[in-house]
Every structure is written in structure tokens, then in C-alpha cells.
């Protein structure tokens, strides 16, 4: 019966289905309203304001592409942009590698105590970005942190984790990768578990070792999930702000101000809403480009 059921009901409901207009409309109504209020409306006025000198209050004038023109020559914007891209380039692969490694270890039947370890890997994800920042600030404090204490104990000299811009960025990369491993790991675990066991059995009959199996079976099979993980993490990296604010407040100085912090400070601290909107649209274009590139790459990988 189960075999026949889809065939019987396949064609008539399809035509009948489309006559249901009222019910689905009621069901999506709330989200349609929310979508237009908090997505379409801001997107439209954001685009409009990016061509004005609006300050948040009072009248404003259209200034054409002046904002965008200024952005091109704004060194603070450039350094925020390059810093954000550098952060993404460091964070995304590190997080990818760590979460794939932990996911593989956790589904491997050789590793004992996986259920407890899984909780340990996941707990950092539950912490808020602010707390993650505080925690790593406490760990990597220059004069009081545990890490420098251990380094000095073993005869090294204190590392300037806070006052060196690059080391400071690396601490944030480590902190963020640590915090985000849990979620990516869950996605990978689900994907790895869905790879048919028979593939591995066939491969090991043919004499393929664990590493070979991982490269030739696991990796290609979880490609769609890898795509999702990279996409989500890239978006997260591009909009990172709270971890930085709690860890080093975008410092030392302004050297680690990322794009969102730049937008926040120009828009809300200096009241240049129009200018900040223009910067927002640059960020939006980058995110769209990332999404399109990844979609394209994913298609090609899947069609191969």
C-alpha cells in the first residue's frame, strides 16, 4: 500500500492544492509582516540614506554618490575592511578544521568517552560572545593571564597579547574558533552519520586505510555540509563585533576595528547615518558576493 499511495495521490492533489490560498496566507501572515517591517523597509531606506547626508534627526539632502566616493578614500574604512577580511580568512579555516576533526573523533567508535567529550566541545557555543571575550581576556591578560604565567614559568618572556595588534587578532581568532566549534561540529556529525556504512565497508575490503577513506569517502559525501559551514562561518566572521569589543575593544587603538564596529561608531557615535549606510551596503555586497561564489563552487562540485 505504501508503494502505491504516492502514485494515486500524486496528480489530483497537485491541481487541488493550488486552490488553497487563504489558509497558507493566514499561516505566513505574521512572518510576511515582520519581513516587510524589519527587512524590506530597512533595506530600502538604508539604500536611500546611503545617498544622503542624513544624521538621524532633522532634514537631509541627497548628495549623490558622495558617501561612496568618500568611503573609497577613507583609510579607517579600508583598514576595517582588510582587518575583517583577514579575520575571516584566519577564522573560517581554523574553525572548519577543528570542527571537522572533533566531529570525526566523536563518531569514531574507537574513541572512548565520546558523549562526555561532546558536551565539553559544545559548552563554549552556549557562552555569549561577550562572555567568550571576557574569558579569553582573563586567560590572555598580559600581566595577570594564565597563559603568560605558564610561559614565564617555563622560562619564556611575557607575550604582548593585548598591546600587539596582530597577536591581539590571533587571540580573537582562537577565541572565536573555540566558541563556534560546537555548532559546526554538530552539523558535521549529522552529515558524517548519514554517509552509508557500505561505502566504508567496500573501501576497507579494497584495502583503503582510514586516511584514504576520509579523503575519498567522507569528504566528498559531506560536501554540502562543508558548504553550509563555510558559508555560515564566513557570514559570522564578517559581522563579528561583540567578541572584539569584550576582548580588546577593537584595539590596541583602533587597529582591530572590524566593519560592524566601524559602522556602529560612524553611525551611532558620530551620527553619520548616511555614511554608515553606505558602508553597510559595501558589507552587504561582500556578503552577497561570498554567497554567490560559494553557490557557484558548490554547484560545480556537486555536478562533477
Amino acid at each position: 500500500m505504501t508503494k502505491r499511495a504516492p502514485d494515486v495521490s500524486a496528480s489530483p492533489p497537485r491541481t487541488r492544492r493550488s486552490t488553497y490560498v487563504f489558509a497558507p496566507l493566514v499561516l505566513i501572515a505574521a512572518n510576511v509582516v515582520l519581513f516587510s517591517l524589519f527587512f524590506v523597509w530597512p533595506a530600502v531606506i538604508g539604500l536611500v540614506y546611503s545617498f544622503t547626508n542624513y544624521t538621524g534627526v532633522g532634514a537631509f539632502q541627497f548628495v549623490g554618490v558622495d558617501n561612496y566616493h568618500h568611503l573609497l578614500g577613507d583609510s579607517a574604512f579600508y583598514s576595517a575592511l582588510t582587518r575583517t577580511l583577514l579575520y575571516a580568512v584566519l577564522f573560517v579555516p581554523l574553525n572548519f578544521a577543528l570542527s571537522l576533526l572533533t566531529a570525526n573523533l566523536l563518531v569514531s567508535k574507537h574513541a572512548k568517552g565520546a558523549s562526555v567529550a561532546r558536551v565539553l566541545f559544545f559548552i563554549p557555543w552556549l557562552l555569549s560572545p561577550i562572555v567568550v571575550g571576557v574569558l579569553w581576556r582573563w586567560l590572555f591578560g598580559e600581566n595577570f593571564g594564565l597563559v603568560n604565567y605558564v610561559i614565564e614559568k617555563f622560562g619564556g618572556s611575557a607575550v604582548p597579547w593585548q598591546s600587539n595588534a596582530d597577536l591581539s587578532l590571533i587571540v580573537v581568532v582562537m577565541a572565536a574558533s573555540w566558541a563556534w566549534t560546537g555548532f559546526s561540529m554538530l552539523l558535521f556529525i549529522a552529515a558524517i552519520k548519514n554517509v552509508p556504512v557500505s561505502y566504508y565497508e567496500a573501501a576497507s575490503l579494497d584495502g583503503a586505510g582510514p586516511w584514504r577513506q576520509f579523503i575519498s569517502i567522507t569528504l566528498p559525501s559531506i560536501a554540502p555540509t562543508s558548504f553550509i559551514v563555510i558559508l555560515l562561518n564566513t557570514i559570522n566572521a564578517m559581522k563579528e563585533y561583540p567578541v572584539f569589543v569584550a576582548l580588546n575593544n577593537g584595539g590596541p587603538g583602533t587597529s582591530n576595528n572590524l566593519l560592524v564596529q566601524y559602522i556602529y561608531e560612524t553611525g551611532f557615535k558620530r551620527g553619520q547615518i548616511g555614511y554608515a549606510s553606505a558602508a553597510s551596503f559595501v558589507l552587504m555586497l561582500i556578503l552577497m558576493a561570498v554567497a554567490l561564489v560559494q553557490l557557484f563552487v558548490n554547484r560545480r562540485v556537486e555536478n562533477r
Partner: protein
Amino acid sequence: MTTTDTPRPVDAGPGRAVSKKRPGGTGSGGLRRAVPATTLLWILACLYGLPVLWFILSSLKPASELFSYPLTLVPHNPTLSGYLTAWRSANFSQYFLNTALVCVITTILTVGVSCCTGYALAKYDNRWLKAFFLCILATTMLPGEVMLAPEFLVVRNLGLYNSFAGIILPAVLTATGCFMFRQFFLTVPDELVEAARIDGARELSIFLRIMVPISRPIMLTLAILSFQWRWNDYIWPLLMLNDPDKFTVQIGIQSIVGAQNINWSVLLGASVISMIPLIAIFLVFQRYVMGADINAGLKD
């Protein structure tokens, strides 16, 4: 209603069954492989657990012991004074209640709205729904942080500035939630709906009386995710709230970090207090997060 016992589509849950018998050693060479895998797993687990452990143990130290060398892992005189000072100072208990209120309301709304939308997207088929599906997809590409300034102006123009509604309403629509429910309802056989229609049930009562009850596991999963998102939100509440009585926990913690001289004892106490609710919820409902095929919600 005979169709209820139609087998679920294949992808509903082979995961756990498969995991038991991973490939590789067939028993004899087990130990040789078990040792490196287990060692590596536990080295990593310790690396992940250590920062949190150090943080929590530090928070139990009295302020005088925090910076006294040599540093010790276990506090000599464990005390809760950091927590008590944090809880009493600077309205922190008020922040805690505010955050809890915002989280609970947002979570209930998110689950309800996502369930309705997910069902409509899965079980009905017309052009508008397809278009709306793409619209929701677009929101994943453009997170709120991208449109900080204009979204702020919209919420202000709606008269929601400095109110909880201003942080609740913009957070209700989530693509992840809609997709999770859509994916779940796609696995529910259409025949179930058809049968109920033949029995004369009205469309919305099919949804409310049949579909809502069977989607309870997804509801819990999304509720936990949503609670985590909202509890940890920082930038949007920071923009929206002006009145210190309405601040959320994250803003409270950040205001301690932002001070000229950080009071680490209070900061550690406040941070650990803010971690407790989520970790408690997670430990209780662990299987709804760990067991959930969250992937299904995000893919496609």
C-alpha cells in the same frame, strides 16, 4: 487515518543506528586504534574545557587572591563573594530578569511563527509561497548587523525605541526556524493531510490539531536555539535600550568590561551567573540539540 502508520521517508533518522557500527577495525585491532583516537579526543576535550574551568575556578577566588602569584588552579579560600557583589551591584538582578523576559517572549513567538510558516512552505504549493521562501532565504545572507542604522531608524519610527518590543519583534523572524519546520513537515506524508481533508477537517484545524502536536521535538530544538540566540544578543539591545533599568545581562557585563579599571572579581562573578541559565537548559534538554539533525534545517 490509516496513513498515519506509513513509514517515514528514509532521511528521517538513520543517523543514530548507523553510528554504532563505524567502519575500520573489526574488533581484533580495536585497541591499537582506540588508544590514539581516545588520546587525541581527550587532549582536545581538555583544551576546550580548560578555559571554562579556569574561568569558573577563578570566579570562586576572593578578589585578593585573583592576582596573587603563584597562580593556583584551585582557590585556597573559595568564596561566593564575587557572585554576591555582582548580583547586588549595578542592577544586575534587574538585567537578569529583563533578559529572561525578553528571551521567553521572543522564543515563544519565534517557535509559533516559524511553525506556521514552515508548515505553509512545506504543505502548500503556489507562486507566492515560493517567492516568500526566497525572501526568507535572503534574510540569511543579510543579517541584522548589516543594516544596523536603517533598522534602528525603522524601529524608532515605529515608536519602539527603548522598549522591549523593539528588541523582541525584529528578532522573531528567523530563517533557520522556518527551514527547520519546513524540513520537518516535508517528511510528514501528504496523505495525512489528505485523509484529514476527506474527513472534512478545515485547513487551519488540520494544522492546529494534527501538525502542531507532532512537531513538538522540532519546537523544543528551535526553542533552545532561539533562547541561546536571544540570551547572547549584544549589539541590538545595546542600540535599542537607553534606560539602564531595561538593560540586558550582556550589556551589563560589557559595561563592567568597558570601565576604566576592570573589577575582575565582579566581572567574573557576573559572567559566570550569565552562563548558568543556558548551560542548565542545555544539560536538561541535551538530546534535543545533540540528537537533532540541525543540518536539515539549514540545507536546501
